[in-house]
């Protein structure tokens, strides 16, 4: 056990030292306080993605996030100021099947574990909200009627949790709607959600352009609010989908297919390139969002914009239930292949602070069956959580 803890500590610490702490130069301001005063905080947004692979009764990531949501709900003690964005791939491997399907019980547990993040007493009292975005796995990696059915199932489950159990969770955008949908956090921030899987699978140019036009309008009408555009697919990444693939991992096959742009879910594909170009064009013609939040990659990345049309910051938080390698992308400020999540604080002085929390990679999941091994895994996994990166994304004023 001691060896495991030691290994876990170093597994987390070494990449942090090598990559995580290269972030200081060029930051928008000094690193924020480790323990910000809740009196100065207007609202809190948590980012977690690809958390749809957690069986049993949760994993260390969801438990730590639940504690954080409870803590901030109680500390702020105001209605609807704590938001959790689940950035897609909420149900692995192929979406939320209907009750007649043999996979339904497993799907229900996997989605239920994420709903539970918002089910604590303080979160309920103060109306902490969970926004679930669609990912490619939620669509079952397909399209048409099958995908629509899967998305409606997931939407129905979330609506029941809200209506029947009083847990304020919802699917956004709604099933088979590409978005954008708008969620305002008072006068400080505007969250705009997109279903980028819809855009990837949409073959007709006109409806795709309509989505980008609506997105431009949503950003333009945000007023003084800081804008977060949230979607499943990142615009830039140093992970596998961005081409950081070991050549020999699949004897060169995946590496070559990525280079030739033959996999839709990789940034090199023609469909994905059209999505990125559409977003860049939209952002470059109007106001650039402060944050573009995404999952898809099973790691944690903070990337600043490097070209016209890039958001100020791209935050990739997709290690809710598994973690994978990450390489340095253009504009990268931080990257870590470990299970975790991100927290954004919108301050009353109009500053915006980011913190990244992670535990050791071996604690992405714990044994499903209740018992000593699971208890130890959950306990150690939560204990090893630490803030691995922080940055002031926007200075006050």
């Amino acid at each position, binding site marked *: 056990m001691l060896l495991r803890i030691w290994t876990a500590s170093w597994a987390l610490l070494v990449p942090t030292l090598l990559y995580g702490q290269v972030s200081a130069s060029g930051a928008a301001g000094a690193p924020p306080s480790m323990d910000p005063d809740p009196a100065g905080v207007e609202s809190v947004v948590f980012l977690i993605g690809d958390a749809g692979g957690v069986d049993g009764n949760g994993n260390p990531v969801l438990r730590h996030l639940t504690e954080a949501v409870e803590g901030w709900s109680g500390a702020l003690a105001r209605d609807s100021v704590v938001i959790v964005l689940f950035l897609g791939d909420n149900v692995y491997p192929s979406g939320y099947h209907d009750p007649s399907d043999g996979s339904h019980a497993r799907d229900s547990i996997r989605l239920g574990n994420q709903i539970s993040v918002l089910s604590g007493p303080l979160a309920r009292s103060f109306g902490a909200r969970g926004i679930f975005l669609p990912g490619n796995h939620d669509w079952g990696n397909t399209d048409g009627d099958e995908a629509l059915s899967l998305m409606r199932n997931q939407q129905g489950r979330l609506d029941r949790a809200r209506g029947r159990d009083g847990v304020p969770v919802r699917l956004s955008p709604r099933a088979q709607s590409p978005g954008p949908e708008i969620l305002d956090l008072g006068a400080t921030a505007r969250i705009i959600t997109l279903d980028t899987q819809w855009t990837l699978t949409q073959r007709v140019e006109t409806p795709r352009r309509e989505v980008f036009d609506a997105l431009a309008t949503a950003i333009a009408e945000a007023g003084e609010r800081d804008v977060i555009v949230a979607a499943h697919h990142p615009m830039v990444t140093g992970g596998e989908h961005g081409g950081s693939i070991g050549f020999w991992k699949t004897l060169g*096959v995946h590496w070559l297919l990525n280079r*030739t742009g*033959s*996999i839709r*879910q990789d940034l090199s594909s023609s469909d994905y390139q059209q999505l990125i170009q559409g977003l860049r064009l939209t952002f470059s013609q109007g106001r650039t969002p402060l944050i573009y939040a995404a999952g898809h990659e099973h790691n944690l990345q903070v990337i600043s914009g490097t070209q016209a049309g890039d958001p100020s910051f791209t935050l990739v938080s997709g290690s809710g239930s598994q973690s994978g390698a990450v390489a340095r992308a253009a504009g990268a400020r931080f990257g870590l292949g470990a299970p975790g999540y991100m927290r954004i604080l919108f301050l009353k002085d109009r500053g915006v602070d980011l913190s990244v929390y992670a535990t050791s990679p071996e604690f992405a999941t714990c044994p499903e069956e209740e018992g000593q091994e699971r208890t130890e895994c959950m306990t150690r996994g939560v204990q090893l959580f630490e803030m691995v990166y922080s940055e002031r994304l926007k200075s006050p004023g």
Partner: protein
Amino acid sequence: MRRVLLLTLVLLCTVELPRPVTAVSQDWSVLGGGALGAATGSWLAVAFLTARARAGDPLDTREEAIIGTAVPMIAGFATGLAIGTFAEDHLGGTVLWGIAGWATGIGIGGSLGGHIWDDPSGRWAGAVLGGAVGLLVGGTVGYITSGTEPNPTAGSGMPLVVRIRF
């Protein structure tokens, strides 16, 4: 692209020119034929998937890629084994011409791909497709033009030996 060139060099080093059939040389022919056949099958499968993607029907996930290349890889392995076992005198020529065609195809295809498709992966797609065409053409030409002439003076040749080691 550097990795592909490096792989080309490695493969060229494995070329085995036709030699008199002995049990030892046939061992290597069978193994080499199988390995290069599997590599050829994989390349052709990747080329097929690339062509499909360029026609507007990309793979949805990387898992599909594994499934899509498994059968051609096994088929290529079996073909390579068969050539190494039953037509060993064709193996050297097939491999040599195949690699030459592959390398030429990569060069021509990569250049054309950059002109045909304006996205960053166009050059790679062209290289893979050109390499596949080169492999097929070169391998076929190599197979047809290689092989030893029958020796009318030979009374009885060495019997074919297939060794299976456990």
